[in-house]
């Protein structure tokens, strides 16, 4: 899976031109595009230090991250680029036998914002922090809006096998359905366990879940 260099370069220069317009005043950059990219990575590697579970290897981008860094939020991604990402990411999803777990456990995962930070110890719970970006149950007033509201997610869609598979898959790898999504690839990047993702699927789909009241 590789992207033609030309296209990436072209797209990123368009993106840069757009940003230069927004920033307005910066008329000229002193570094060429390639040089700027090289220096950025080099500077980051010399400016961060590994701590706890966060090693410097985290600064290395995979292909999706590298490509998606070229497109700024709200900016359209060319169809051939997004299709390529979505196809490859979809093919890599691993589904468990049981897609729906326990919604109560899912609610805890949705409320938990810790895990994977350099400040988190080995026993710090790992959560999905869904409420940071999504509305889910009505009882929780403190929710964000980076992602769409998921209130009544299951009530509107039912709990068919296909919906369960889509829901689990979206949690597992958001980029399989929406290239360069802001949402972490919870399964692909091994953030959550299979059981946690099944519990979140239940939180979204189970008719008894507060999300569907």
């Amino acid at each position: 899976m590789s992207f033609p260099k030309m296209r990436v370069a072209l797209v990123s220069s368009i993106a840069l031109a757009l940003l230069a317009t927004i920033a307005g005043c910066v008329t000229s950059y002193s570094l060429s595009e390639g040089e700027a990219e090289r220096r950025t990575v080099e500077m980051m590697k010399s400016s961060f230090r590994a701590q706890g579970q966060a090693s410097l290897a985290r600064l290395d981008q995979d292909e999706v991250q590298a490509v998606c860094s070229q497109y700024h939020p709200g900016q359209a991604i060319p169809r051939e680029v997004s299709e390529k990402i979505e196809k490859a990411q979809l093919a890599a999803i691993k589904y468990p036998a049981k897609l729906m777990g326990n919604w109560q456990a899912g609610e805890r995962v949705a409320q938990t914002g810790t895990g994977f930070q350099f400040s988190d110890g080995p026993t710090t719970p790992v959560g999905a922090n869904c409420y940071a970006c999504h509305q889910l149950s009505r009882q929780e007033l403190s929710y964000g809006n980076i992602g769409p509201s998921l209130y009544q997610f299951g009530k509107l869609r039912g709990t068919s096998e296909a919906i369960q598979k889509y829901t689990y898959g979206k949690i597992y790898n958001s980029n399989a359905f929406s290239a360069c999504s802001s949402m972490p690839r919870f399964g692909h990047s091994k953030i959550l366990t299979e059981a946690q993702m099944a519990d979140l699927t239940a939180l979204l789909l189970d008719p008894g879940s507060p999300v569907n009241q």
Partner: protein
Amino acid sequence: MNYQRRQVLKSGGGMTVLAVALAAGLIRPQDALAADWNGAAFATKTVADTVKAMGGGASADSKDIQITAPDIAENGMVVPISVTSNLAKTQSISILVEKNPNTLSASFDIPEGTDPFVQTRVKMGQSSNVYAVVKADGKYYSAVKEIKVTLGGCGG
């Protein structure tokens, strides 16, 4: 015991209060250095007990006490609260948070010539009813307001 404690507290503080509070195991010695600090009241865990420890019986609801505070606090570490009493001869204003580990947050004596008004900020461990208890002309009155505390930030 209860009667005796109230008598002691009514007497206005001093070593007796300290001795009783220590005997009850409510506060530790270093918490009670100040002679005019009602340790027993600050150790209470219910609104009724706080009012008792301050020397009152039951407090009556009053529309003449106004609590100004947000319905929702963005952070429980700093919850702004002001209390205005329109009761004649207001002598003291106290702020109580029902669900904090200890109910009483702060108590203010209002001398003649000072407005029956105070504004301060308190910590709230969780969403709770907040009471303003006012002593006026020797009697106790109260008002209540619910304040929700939200969980903020990125969660980590």
